[in-house]
Each structure stands twice: as structure tokens, then as C-alpha cells.
């Protein structure tokens, strides 16, 4: 059996659990439990260990989908989770007080993925907060010479999550067969 993994990361309430649910072939294992700190105001239950989903490919290949814990205090898990990952799906909640702060925090944390062009960004909750716009996110990154796919997504919608992953794959290899 060949196993690969894709990482979903982002701040609390960005939709990591939901995005994995949208595309997983199994009922995702979600380790949500009642948060006991500041994050409890943002979400009824927040992910304290990790989420896990799976995409089954023909044959024995499997794509494991891991969601990093939403609380930054679990960050030592990130390096373990991301080691050997195909790529990173970073979800940013546009409705949080400082989405650009979140963006830079997570991009800094996953610097290696950025260097290898293995990152796509999904901006969620744009129906709740229409600014900053997608263009503003691009401008933030272009100042650092980074050009990666950034899409406005609804993590509940499979098509939105799928196209984000498709963009990740084409970023890694534009010559993929359609």
C-alpha cells in the first residue's frame, strides 16, 4: 500500500475539519472536544488533537488528510504532521480580527512548504466579512515574492475544496494529464 498525505492548517474556525469532511472518502475521525481556553468563544468544539480523513485512489494508493490542531499551542505537532506531505492547504478565516496576521503566522510556520511551492490558500467566511479581498491577500504575499493560488472558498462545498487541491497539484506539476 502506498500512503501519502496532505495537510490542512489554519487558525481556529477556519474550516479545516469541514474541508476534510467535504472530500474524505471515509467519515473523518474528528477529535473535537470542548475547548477550555480562549478558543471556546469562537467555536463550540475546537480540534485539540488532529482531524483525519482519507481519499482512496484506485489500487492501493491512499491520500491521508490531516488537519492540524486549531490552537497554536499544539504547534509542535505541525512539524511531525507535515514531514513528507504532498502539500499544504492553508485556510484563513476572513472573519477573524486579523486575517493577515494569521496568514503570516502560518506561512512563517510552514516556510518549507512555501519554498517548495507546495501551498494553496483558501479564504473562508468571506460571506461574513468581504474584506480583505482576495486581491489584498495576493498583495500581502507578492511583497515577499510569493505567487500561490488563493481562492475564496466555502469549506462545506466539495467543489471549492476540490479546486483548491487541483490548483495545488498543478502548481506542483503544470504538465499533469487532464
Amino acid at each position, binding site marked *: 500500500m*502506498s500512503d*501519502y498525505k496532505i495537510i490542512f492548517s489554519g487558525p481556529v474556525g477556519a474550516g479545516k475539519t469541514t474541508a476534510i469532511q467535504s472530500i*474524505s*472518502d*471515509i*467519515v473523518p*475521525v474528528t*477529535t473535537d472536544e470542548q475547548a*477550555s*481556553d*480562549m478558543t471556546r468563544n469562537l467555536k463550540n468544539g475546537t480540534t*485539540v*488533537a*488532529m482531524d*483525519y480523513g*482519507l*481519499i482512496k*485512489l484506485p489500487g492501493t*494508493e491512499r*491520500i491521508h488528510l490531516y488537519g492540524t490542531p486549531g490552537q*497554536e*499551542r*499544539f*504547534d*509542535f*505537532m505541525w*512539524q*511531525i504532521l507535515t514531514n513528507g506531505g504532498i502539500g499544504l492547504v492553508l485556510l484563513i478565516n476572513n472573519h477573524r480580527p486579523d486575517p493577515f496576521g494569521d496568514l503570516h*503566522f502560518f506561512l*512563517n*510556520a510552514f516556510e518549507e512548504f512555501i519554498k517548495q511551492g507546495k501551498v494553496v490558500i*483558501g479564504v473562508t467566511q468571506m460571506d461574513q466579512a*468581504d474584506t480583505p479581498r*482576495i486581491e489584498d491577500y495576493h498583495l500581502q504575499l*507578492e511583497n515577499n515574492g510569493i*505567487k*500561490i*493560488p*488563493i*481562492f*475564496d*472558498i466555502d469549506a462545506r462545498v*466539495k*467543489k*471549492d475544496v*476540490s*479546486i*483548491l*487541491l*487541483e*490548483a495545488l*497539484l*498543478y502548481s*506542483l*506539476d*503544470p*504538465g*499533469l*494529464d*487532464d
Partner: protein
Amino acid sequence: MSEKQVTPIRVAAIGMDQRQRNALVMLFSNHCCNRYILVEEESSEICIIDLDLYGGERLWHEFRQRHPDRPLILASLKPRQVENGHTLFVKKPIPVIQLMGAIDQLSETLNKATGRPIDQTEPIAEARQAEPQQIKQTASRPARNVASLMTEAQETVFIGTSPDIDPDNQEQLAKIYYDPQHYLQGHIQEALNQATRHNRNVSIEGPWPAIDLMIAKQRIFVDAGEKHLRPFCTVPDATREVELRFNEQQRPTTGMRDYSVYAFIWQLALWASRGRLPSGTNLNQPIYLKRWPNFSRLVVTPHALAISALWIKQPRSLLDTAISLGIPQRYVFAFYSAANAVQLAGETRRAVDTLLEPPAIEQANNRGLFSRLLQRLRG
């Protein structure tokens, strides 16, 4: 020669719950070659406190009352000036190597201070590796179709069926161009320019249903469905009697269709171009893509993602793009027309871009896997 047995450094995680502790056990075991071991506070040499935990500050001060000199690592998202001889600060997110370095540094300090080897007789609270998570294997959910690609019918409407042309054949060449100014696309683009310049809302009035552009929100409201609008977008000079009118007040938009201005222009450009190019586009000049289009909210033409990925890496001519990707020219032309209409793509002006021959597409090691995953995502 056998490797010297190294006594693991005993580390305690103060105030962390079982899942965090499990993660640390996994970290120490799998990634730190068992150089460290997670123990209870009483038997620890070094402790870790995450100040961002609920009550983290209190945990720290209580810990110091219990153990004034025990080496301690404090972690937080915010930089703190807390370091002294037996306390180190690490800013989160903590790279594993940095955590290891901090533990080693404190351990060395401890050994120098005590001048004795570490006592190994104290009980180890948690030496076993964290149990892997149980994966609930259930029946697969049926894969739904993904609509990121156009259907054949949509493809005909948006892109047409024109065959590839020979760029040296003038007759064929003449057929691949259209003038956006002769279509509704051009009028909407002009309306956007005017609205932006004057920072005012604009109505685009003509024989079509009402179209209002709200500049602050970057939205367009149309009082009709696509079926009624499309004829004005696809027939040249169907829009001669057009008037742009500034609106001081926002007009009621109840019942009108609401589009992002860029998604609307993108769609109009696809309708107007039908696999052709704006007049004057040079087939051999490299094309740049300023940034990835927001594909989740746009009509995605065939191979648009591949073309984007290619142009983001390096400008490439339209003809070379079609050849490199092995796709019909009309797909490249259609995508360029839409991206150009929203000012995301254009011809490069730098001489260096025309001097350098674009490199062959670099094939990923996992191309086969990626292709299979792509197929799976598209249902």
C-alpha cells in the same frame, strides 16, 4: 564497536492534557530518537510550560514556587523576556530542532551545576509511544461530480470548436481575433474604468436588461438571467446604443442577479471571445499571469489551472503554451481573453522575456499519483 547507551533526558509537560502529552511522547520517540522521555513533574529534570494555555501564567508562577531552580522552557506566541540561568524562552511555532536545542542546553547547564550523572532510578510515568489514532473505517461516501470542468455543451458555448491555426496562414490568422469594444464586454470594462476613476456607481444602459455597477462593493447587478443577457454578449455591435450613467444613490437591487465585477467581466469575455483573442494579441510574445485567478468563483475553462501554473512560473507565448501542454489553441486563447479582460494576464514588455526560451515543463516525481488524485477529485 557498540554505540554508547545514552540516558534519556526526563522532561515534564506542565498543565498539558493527555493528547498533548501523547504528541510529545510521539515527538520524542519518533523524531528525537528517544533522547528525551516524558515523565511526571516530580521525576523530571526539565519542564515545559506553554504560556498560551488557559492559566499558563499562573502555572508558571506556581511552578517556580515549587521548584525555584528547576530548568524550565517557556513557550508562547508573543516574545517574552523571561530568560535566566534556568529558564529559556522559545517562540512558537517551535521547530523541533529548536525544542531539542533548548532541552539540551538546559540539560547541560543542569549537569554542570550538579556535577553528577543523572539519576535513573526514579519512576517513568509515560515511556510508551502514543497509541496511533483509531481510524473509523466506514463505507465510502459516493463521490459526487465536481463541476470544476465545463460540460461539453458549456464548452461549445464558451469556447467554440475552432481548430488550431497555422500562424503563418494569414487567412486563418484573421479568424482568431475579436474586438472586445464591439461587445458588451468592452462597455462593462469601460464602465468599470469610469466608476473607478470617479469612485461613483455606474449604470450601463442600452437595449439589454438593467445593469448596475456598484464600485465600492465591486459588484454588478443584472436584472435578467444569463439566457437573456447572453445574446448581447455574443453578437458584435448588438450594443451600439449604450450609455454610461453615474448614479449618486444606490438603486434598489431586489430580485437582481448579483455578480462580482471580475467574475462578470470574465464570463462576458468568454462569451465574446469564444476561443479567440483580443485584436492585436501577439501569438509569439510571452504572456505573464499577474496572479492566480480566484477560480472557485469563476467559470473554469478546460486546462485553465495548468495554463495558470505554467504562466505563474514563467511567461510563455500562447502558441508555446498550447504546444507545451499538448492542448488545442482555443483553450489557451479563451483563458487568455478572460484573464486579460480582468487585467490578470498580458504580453510581457521586457526584452529579456523574449530572449529566453521557456524551459520544458518539469515533471514531478509523483506525476502518476497526482494524475490519479486529479481524476478522483473530478469525480
